[in-house]
């Protein structure tokens, strides 16, 4: 077996990237394995910071789901290493959503860190990914189809009107442009995870097929290693012939099973990865154990798209939201829990009518998580927890909807109940304000003439 690639490049012409975190800011970088990675002569340090996994609230409300301090800490870890080693740093899908405000937030954080640390001047590049509703409106009115993904119908004006904010998923193009412009640090708007890593590799002439696969395998950091352990760094190396990925935490290894297993992670299909400009076909990939902690992959192919189509994500507000929590221990009440929630709902209807608000009961201990797909919903637990959600146009109304439904479960009229002093147990005799309710209004694609047209790039100086 060859010597570990941690210590020596496997060919003369390679590009090495350390990835310290699969969702920067969401949970802190583990710095031990990152330090090891920084000693492996990386050519770049790259991480993705976004995900639609966090649900529609952050994009709709234009907030981060990650705490500010964790974002600053992770950026500081990467920035300090990047400037010390003199290699570029790239962060994509800034601040969970990649909206314009999140890009600006990360750029400001990096400027502040550079000033505080008195880092020598460097060039910071960034790009935006938001798409204006006016632009989408114009295209719909002109008869252009904004096509739905995953069974959704084409975007219409009603769905657009209900939308708060839209981001487009950038490919490699704005990253390559900013690298060409001399950026030392790049903060990207919403982008395909793999593009963050593929862009520098393609720019340096490595084959597209390997470069996109390289991005796919690195984007979640140590999720491609075993045993399971997130937020640890991994080292990638691309050559003209292959991609290699190495676990950096001493307790972890990349194995054929862990790397192949990661290729299918959070994707509908393990064989295809789509992005702006085409897709990579992984169905003929070959995985080999290269050294004890490194896997070598060959054989992906790149299929350019016949038409440029960009993915759009959009979120729209439904209303203000309050939450109440009750417990149930009486077996008779548990067996008749649908009558209890129906009673509570009826009391809300008597106050507000049957529309103009939303009311949901999530019945933990029976079927909250799977709903009607729960095979065991006819066999509930000995104790139920019920989370009541009231959604309405105003906070006052949402609070009252939620309060009526929560409190009226206490007064539910079940014919043979023994306990007549209260039908449910209150954790708190109150309802709590929650984030407003949003929903994903766009999961669509739109035609582009130029892969840069939605992604304006900017470059300026930071440091002292």
């Amino acid at each position: 077996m060859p010597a570990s690639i941690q210590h020596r490049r496997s060919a003369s012409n390679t590009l090495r990237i350390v990835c310290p975190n699969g969702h920067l800011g969401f949970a802190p970088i583990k710095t031990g394995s990152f330090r090891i990675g920084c000693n492996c002569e990386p050519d770049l340090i790259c991480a993705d910071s976004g995900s639609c996994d966090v649900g529609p609230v952050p994009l709709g409300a234009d907030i981060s789901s990650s705490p500010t301090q964790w974002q600053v800490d992770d950026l500081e870890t990467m920035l300090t290493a990047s400037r010390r080693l003199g290699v570029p740093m790239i962060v994509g899908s800034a601040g969970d959503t990649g909206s314009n405000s999140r890009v600006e937030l990360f750029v400001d954080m990096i400027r502040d860190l550079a000033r505080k640390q008195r880092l020598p001047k460097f060039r910071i590049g960034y790009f935006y990914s938001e798409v204006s509703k006016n632009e989408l409106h114009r295209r719909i009115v002109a008869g252009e189809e904004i096509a739905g993904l995953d069974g959704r119908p084409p975007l219409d004006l009603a769905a657009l009107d209900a939308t708060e904010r839209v981001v487009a998923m950038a490919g490699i193009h704005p990253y390559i442009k900013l690298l060409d412009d001399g950026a030392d640090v790049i903060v990207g708007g919403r982008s395909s995870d793999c593009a963050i890593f593929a862009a520098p590799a393609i720019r340096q002439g490595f084959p597209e097929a390997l470069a996109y696969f390289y991005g796919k395998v690195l984007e979640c950091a140590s999720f491609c290693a075993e045993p399971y352990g997130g937020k640890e760094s991994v080292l990638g190396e691309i050559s003209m012939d292959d991609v290699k990925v190495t676990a950096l935490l001493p307790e972890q290894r990349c194995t054929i099973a862990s790397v192949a297993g990661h290729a299918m992670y959070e994707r509908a299909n393990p064989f295809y990865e789509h992005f702006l400009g085409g897709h990579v076909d992984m169905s003929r990939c070959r995985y080999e154990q290269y050294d004890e902690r490194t896997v070598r992959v060959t054989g992906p192919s790149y299929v350019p798209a016949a038409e440029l189509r960009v993915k759009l994500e959009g979120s729209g507000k439904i209303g203000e939201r309050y939450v109440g929590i009750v417990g149930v221990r009486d077996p008779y009440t548990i067996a008749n829990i649908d009558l209890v929630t129906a009673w509570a709902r009826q009391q809300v209807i008597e106050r507000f009518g049957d529309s103009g608000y939303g009311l949901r009961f999530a019945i933990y201990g029976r079927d909250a998580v799977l709903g009607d797909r729960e095979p065991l919903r006819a066999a509930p637990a000995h104790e139920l927890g019920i989370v009541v959600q009231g959604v309405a146009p105003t906070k006052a109304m949402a609070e009252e909807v939620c309060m009526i439904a929560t409190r009226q479960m206490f007064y539910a009229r079940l014919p043979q109940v023994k306990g007549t002093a209260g039908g449910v147990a209150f954790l708190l005799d109150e309802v709590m304000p929650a984030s407003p309710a949003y929903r994903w209004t766009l999961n669509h694609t739109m035609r582009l003439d130029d892969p840069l047209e939605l992604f304006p790039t900017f470059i300026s100086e930071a440091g002292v």
Partner: protein
Amino acid sequence: MASRKLCEVAKTIRSKNAGVDKVTFDVIFPDPATYNRVRESGVLAREAICRIFRIDAAQITDHVEFDPALAIKFTIYRRVPSGSPGDADIFGSQQYGPLLDVEVPDG
């Protein structure tokens, strides 16, 4: 015929969002023999998935056997998009529960 539960024979059983409208399931086996035995048994075939989750076949968007990872992988539409009213699993990460008890006939 004797059988064991899927959670006793699989190495990993997980679910996760695949975009905002789908949830994908990965069942990964420790060795080729177990992988092949489960594949051939049909206990994770399309019809079985429909029965387990009480869905019709049109709800399954992908169903593949992925040899390099010794995995059976399938993807289904969500009941509602991630985070919409009525969804209580924003990441889709606990949808695999019903798979744990699937009976796998001994080889």
